[in-house]
């Protein structure tokens, strides 16, 4: 048990955890009284036995493993892209079985409602808009709204086949959804590789736990994609479409193609003839049925979208309209990635599913509502302001960390373009030990689980735990210095 001393915990005999401070937020490992939460008991004991030297050695082994395998991501600076080794911290994140079941139900529910909305909006009568659940003007003014997607039939009405929903745990210990990623959510390959590295380097850590496996993602994804084949296409030809080797997520694209046993193609490998997509092989053209694209809408088809795109496939939109190919995720999902639509997801769940949301949103103020805007701007120094069309933490202003000038600038921008901003209550993300400065210190983290929807919906057990590697920081994005952790969903809870 850890003692409360001063402003933190001092666990007797914990070594690396001696000066661990669990008081900043909800701590995943320690209870408020300093005792270790039951799921983490053995993990904490194991780490107690490790010294700094051993932990350093293990950390080096993981880094070397990632370096050897080329498990990297690219950070784009002003000049050029820099390939970096994927950062992983060794102290794993555990999610108890019962807790995960609840979370998974909530995620399925959320994605089901979002799929209903996308089908209603692009292929249906727009009932949710007609009934005022979401303002029509807000949706059609979204940068993610894709006019060309209207009327394109999507098998099973599954517009969002691969969703990454960012969830966080606040001070009260409850999970909340922070952000929906329904276009091209990335990170799953790192989830699987984190597990593989942990299994190699810290095998002994797994001895005391029944952890749900990570390698089942690829078969799950393949099943999902197969179910999205156009009518009558048995044994569909599936490809993963990548922008190429210079894309920041290229490692992931190659990983997914290899794990599923399908081809990784670039736009130049595909050609459309008579509204049918073919891949160029040395033996001629081979029909393609399902494209798991990792290219944004704007770049998919230079004929219909950005004419300067060299990444896409000319004529792809025509093939989609003809129903001769499926593109996953569907075109136009950006409309629900728009943070301006996010505050309405709870209402969409109630509207389409007739149920209360299992996972709530973070309390959000809509800046296009004058009353909410006035309240939020008045308290902006306590809140978080986010531009609705950005991702990866770009443009986010964290009120308590901002200067007066930054706050004033943000207020001006919000007043000028209220449609483009939301403001949220600051969530003190939960914390977990991470190895820094030769000891285990508390660091904030979030979780991105992945939800697959085709004929059925499956939630992959676990997800990408991103961790802020700087003390006190709430920024978990890897491009901004964040790290990651292996995420263990326990197969069953201890009695």
């Amino acid at each position, binding site marked *: 048990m850890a003692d409360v001393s001063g402003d933190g915990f001092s666990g007797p005999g914990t070594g690396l955890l001696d000066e661990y401070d669990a008081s900043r937020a909800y701590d995943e490992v320690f209870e408020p009284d300093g005792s270790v939460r039951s799921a983490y008991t053995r993990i904490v004991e194991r780490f107690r036995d490790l010294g700094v030297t051993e932990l350093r050695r293990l950390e080096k082994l993981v880094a070397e493993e990632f370096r050897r395998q080329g498990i990297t991501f690219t950070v784009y600076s002003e000049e050029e892209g820099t390939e970096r080794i994927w950062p992983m911290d060794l102290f794993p994140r555990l999610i108890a079985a019962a807790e995960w079941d609840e979370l998974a139900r909530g995620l399925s529910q959320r994605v089901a409602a979002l799929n209903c909305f996308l089908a209603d909006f692009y292929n249906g009568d727009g009932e949710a808009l007609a009934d005022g659940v979401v303002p029509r003007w807000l949706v059609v003014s979204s940068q993610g709204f894709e006019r060309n997607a209207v009327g394109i039939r999507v098998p099973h009405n599954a517009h969002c086949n691969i969703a990454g929903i960012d969830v966080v745990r606040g001070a009260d210990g409850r999970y909340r959804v922070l952000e929906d990623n329904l276009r091209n959510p990335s990170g799953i390959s790192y989830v699987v590789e984190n597990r593989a590295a942990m299994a190699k380097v810290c095998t002994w850590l797994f001895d005391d736990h029944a952890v749900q496996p990570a390698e089942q993602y690829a078969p799950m994804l393949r099943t999902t994609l197969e179910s999205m084949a156009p009518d009558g296409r048995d044994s569909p030809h599936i490809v993963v479409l990548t922008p190429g080797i210079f894309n920041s997520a290229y490692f992931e694209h190659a990983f997914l193609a290899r794990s599923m046993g399908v081809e990784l193609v670039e736009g*130049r490998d595909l050609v459309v003839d008579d509204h049918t997509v073919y891949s160029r092989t040395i033996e001629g053209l081979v029909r393609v049925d399902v494209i798991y694209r990792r290219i944004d809408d704007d770049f998919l088809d230079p004929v219909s979208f950005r004419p300067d795109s060299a990444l896409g496939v000319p004529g792809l939109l025509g093939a989609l*309209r003809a129903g001769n190919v499926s593109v996953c995720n569907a075109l136009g999902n950006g409309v629900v990635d728009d943070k301006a639509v996010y505050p309405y997801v709870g209402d969409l769940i109630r509207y389409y599913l007739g149920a209360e949301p299992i996972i709530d949103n973070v309390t959000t103020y809509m800046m296009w509502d004058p009353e909410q805007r006035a309240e939020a701007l008045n308290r902006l120094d306590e809140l978080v302001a986010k531009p609705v069309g950005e991702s990866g933490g770009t443009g986010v202003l964290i009120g308590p960390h901002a200067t007066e000038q930054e706050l004033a600038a943000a207020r001006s921008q919000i007043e000028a373009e209220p449609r483009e901003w939301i403001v949220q209550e600051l969530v003190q993300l939960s914390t977990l030990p991470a190895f820094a400065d030769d000891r285990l210190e508390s660091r904030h983290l979030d979780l991105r689980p992945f939800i697959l929807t085709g004929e059925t919906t499956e939630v992959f057990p676990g997800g990408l735990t991103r961790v802020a590697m700087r003390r006190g920081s709430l920024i978990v994005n890897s491009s901004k210095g964040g790290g990651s952790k292996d995420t263990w969903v326990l197969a069953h809870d201890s009695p």
Partner: protein
Amino acid sequence: MILARHAEALLWTGRYLERAETISRCLSYAADSITGLRADDARAEGELLVRTLGLTDELQAVGPLDSRPQLVAFLLSDRDNPGSMVSSIVAVRENLRSVRDRIPIELWEEANGLYLRFPFLGHENTPSDLHEVLLMVRRACLAISGVLNEGMRRDEGHAFVVVGRMLERSIFTVGLLEASHSDPRGSLDAGRMLRLTSSLQAYHRQHGSAPDFHGVVRYLLHADDLPRSVFSCLVRAQECLADLASGAEALDRPRRRTALLRSRLEFGDLSEAMVSAPVPALLDFGRELAEVANEVQEGIAPPQTMAAAPRSQYLRPGQISDGAKP
């Protein structure tokens, strides 16, 4: 069935891998042989090696090599020289990276591991332990070859790597023989040719005696049990191209030309020409090999547009019913 882009990347993987290994072997030998020579001789020696490796144009772009360090830098670490060893290693890695989804993980890791040892080598940074570096590269190339042979499916991708390697190797060997006949100083003697092709030990075991020039020339051209002889390379390339051409018609032309070149070796046509005018004969043979390599690449490249080629040449798997079209 392999994507055309993947086929091209694997063909070039084979070529660059062979090139990296060849340069490391040649440089290892040359670095020793020019030590202690007078400046003129050292320069001539270096230029002969550069010519043997087919890098004359690249050398002209940088000017004469006046010292051993310059020669080493040009062949080893000059990233502006697309034929340098480091450029070849980078190219192997980049090509394999673009087909990472279809190759064994170990193959990628070996190539990536080799690449990671060279990130900061530059002109001015010739390693002091040159022989260790070159030995490491040769071993890494052999490890990559091992994974290719033992860990990779014998599919079209594997066949393209083999074709690339065999054509590159035979082009080098023919170039070496041509350079040895052209060299007025006669420095590319029989023993040196055997060393530069890693064939000295095999030759001794088979022929016992001290190597004579014409015997070695015949050996490097015709030996059917020497993996580096031109004949062996053509046999393997022809076998792979025959498999590939059964599905890809466009590869039938380079297959037939490879068979023809093999026949010229096998049935004496080249041998006769070698007696009367060896240099033109070898130049002609080398040119034909290079043309075959180009034809393989052209055979891989699919038509850029549907309008550019008759529809009948495309394979249409399964039944594409008109009903499925709008």
